[in-house]
C-alpha cells in the first residue's frame, strides 16, 4: 500500500509549515484519518513512526483521530454509519449510498514551540 508515501507527505507538510511559521519544534501533530479514506490508519501510523527520525517530527507526539464513515441513503434519506464502501441502507436496503463522511485524510493542527 501507499502508507509510506503518505507518511512522507505528512513529514514534508510539517516541515513546510514549521519553516513558514518560523518554529523549530513541533511537539504534537494531529492527523485525521477517515475510515473510508483509503488509508489504513495502523499501517500509516507505523510508517510515520519509522520515517520521523532525523526530521522535524522526530520527537513529536503523533495524535491520529479516526473519523467513522457516514452514508446517506438516496431512497429514504437515512443518515447512517458506513463501515465499507459498498454499504446498503440499513433501513430500506437500497444502495448505492452517498458517502458524506469518513473520507478525510488531513493534518488538523500542529502544536509548536
Amino acid at each position: 500500500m501507499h502508507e509510506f508515501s503518505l507518511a512522507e507527505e505528512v513529514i514534508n507538510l510539517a516541515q513546510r509549515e514549521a519553516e513558514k511559521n518560523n518554529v523549530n519544534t513541533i511537539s504534537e501533530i494531529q492527523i485525521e484519518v477517515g475510515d473510508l479514506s483509503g488509508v489504513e490508519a495502523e499501517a500509516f501510523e507505523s510508517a510515520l513512526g519509522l520515517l520521523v527520525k532525523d526530521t522535524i517530527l522526530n520527537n513529536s507526539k503523533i495524535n491520529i483521530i479516526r473519523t467513522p464513515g457516514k452514508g446517506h441513503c438516496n431512497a429514504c434519506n437515512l443518515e447512517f454509519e458506513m463501515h465499507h464502501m459498498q454499504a446498503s441502507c440499513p433501513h430500506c436496503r437500497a444502495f448505492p449510498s452517498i458517502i458524506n463522511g469518513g473520507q478525510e485524510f488531513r493534518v488538523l493542527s500542529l502544536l509548536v514551540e
Partner: protein
Amino acid sequence: MCETCGCGDSDQFEIHDPHHTHSHDQSHAHFHAHGGKMHSHSHPHKKVINLNMDILSENNHLAHFNRSFFEEKKVLCLNLVSSPGSGKTTILEKTIHALISTNKIAVIEGDQQTLLDAERIEKSGAPSIQINTGSGCHLDAKMIGSALTKLKVEQNSILFIENVGNLVCPAMFDLGEYKRVVVISVTEGEDKPLKYPYMFQSSHLCIINKADLLPYVDFNTEKAIEYARSINPELEFIILSARSSEGMELWYAWLEKQLKR
C-alpha cells in the same frame, strides 16, 4: 518499504526516453529510521497552528498544474489503471494502430522496472516515455510533471497514462487527468470492484477486457457491472477484447466523445 506491495519513497523514480536509455535524474532523500520513539515535552511557549490541510495537497496542487497544462493545450489526458496483466498495454497498442492516422497520441508508461512497455508503444507508432517508479507502487503528479518536460505532447492530442499495475494505491493520486479508466479482464474475478472499491469509485469508465475468453471462464459480466455500480452508479462500461478487436469500436467512439467535450 511497504511490506504489502513494495511501495517506497515516491521521490525515488527514474524517467526513461526509450531512445535515450541512460538518463538518471531526480536526486532524492532517504529516510532510514528505525522506530523513533515519540514523546511530548512540556514547554511554556507553545502555540497551536490550525491547518485542516489535506495530506495530499502537494500532489493535488501539482495535479492541478498538469490539468491546466492539458486544458491549455487541449490535450485529452486519460489515466489507465488496473491490476497487472489486464491488458492495458495491448489496448493502447491497438488503439494507436487504429487512431494514429487521424489523431496525435502520446503515452506515459508507468512500471516499477523495465522499458518494455514504452518500447511496445513506440513500435505501434506513438511517442512514449517510461517512468520507472523503483519500489513505488503508483504514479504521482510530480512524476507526470517531470515526464511532460521530456515527452512532446502536441496541441489537440490524446495523452494516455498507463499507471503501475495495482488496483490499490493509484486510486489516491490525482495525476491531472481528465478521466480515469479502470481496466479489468474476464480472467479475473467479477468481485474485483468489491475488493478494490476505491479504484472503481474514482474511475469514470470501466473496460472489461479479454471478452473473447468469456466462453472459457466463469466470469459473470452482469454481476461485475452490478458490483461496480453499487460502488459507483455513474461508472460507464465497455466490454471488449483488445486481442480479437471485438468491441474496440465502442472504445474508439467513447474516446471520440471525450475529444468533443
